[in-house]
């Protein structure tokens, strides 16, 4: 097992860093270009959600990854405001910020690009997204 952890300020300029950090972590496994791109996409969605929805004015986003053989686990965690209704939030096109040009596709994209995702959240405490993908 190999693991990695990073913490960074919930600022939009760190979104690119987060995607590249996770894709860099799995690089030694020689994953296909598709897997690399899929992981970047899912990480970007989860991290952007923590920055936009989790925190209003600043906070810290934590990413924790594990590689067990070829199975990647990525956890994206914030201590922001949490999600009231997780089932509703995961529905395609559902967004609480339509006035900000959000399309409500983040969770749908994470589900489509990773093998499995687990959403844990508590109002006022924060949100933890755990995603799994078998690298090919």
């Amino acid at each position, binding site marked *: 097992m190999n693991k990695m952890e990073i913490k960074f300020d919930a600022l*939009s*300029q760190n*979104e*690119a860093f987060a*995607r590249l950090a996770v894709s860099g972590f799995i690089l030694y496994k020689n994953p296909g270009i598709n897997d690399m*791109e*899929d992981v*970047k*996409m899912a990480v*970007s*969605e989860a991290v*952007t959600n923590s*920055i*936009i929805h989790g925190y209003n004015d600043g906070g810290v986003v934590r990413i924790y990854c594990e590689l067990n053989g070829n199975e990647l686990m990525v956890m994206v965690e914030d201590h922001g405001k949490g999600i009231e209704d997780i089932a509703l939030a995961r529905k395609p*096109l559902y967004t609480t910020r339509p006035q*900000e*040009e*959000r*399309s409500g*596709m*983040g969770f*749908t*994209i994470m589900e*489509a*690009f990773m093998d499995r995702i687990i959403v844990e959240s508590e109002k006022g405490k924060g949100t933890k997204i755990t995603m799994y993908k078998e690298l090919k």
Partner: protein
Amino acid sequence: MKIDSNITGNTIVVNLFGDVDHHSTDIIKNHIYKNLTPDIKNMIINLEGVEFMDSSGIGMILGRYKEMSEKMGTVSVTGIRGNMERIYTLSGLYRIIKSYDTVDEAIEAVKAQAGVYK
């Protein structure tokens, strides 16, 4: 992220380069607002130079579509491929925003709508 644009007649071609994410969508919107004049009726968003785009890009394109539609204008995209194409399909954007391989093809299509392209 880098961005430039050029205007021919009543069509603006917006060329995007690099990553289109939540961080860069504000930069893109500001550039478009600065260059968009009331007489521009067609917008072609060229993604040929884009290396990464997530749902923030989908929201940004949808936002431009809504604004152009309000003034009876059009929005089309070019250079969509790979995962960009997957999220374009997944979000249903392909049903309302036309996609072309190249900017030239998109311009031809705009011209074909009689009288819109001068």
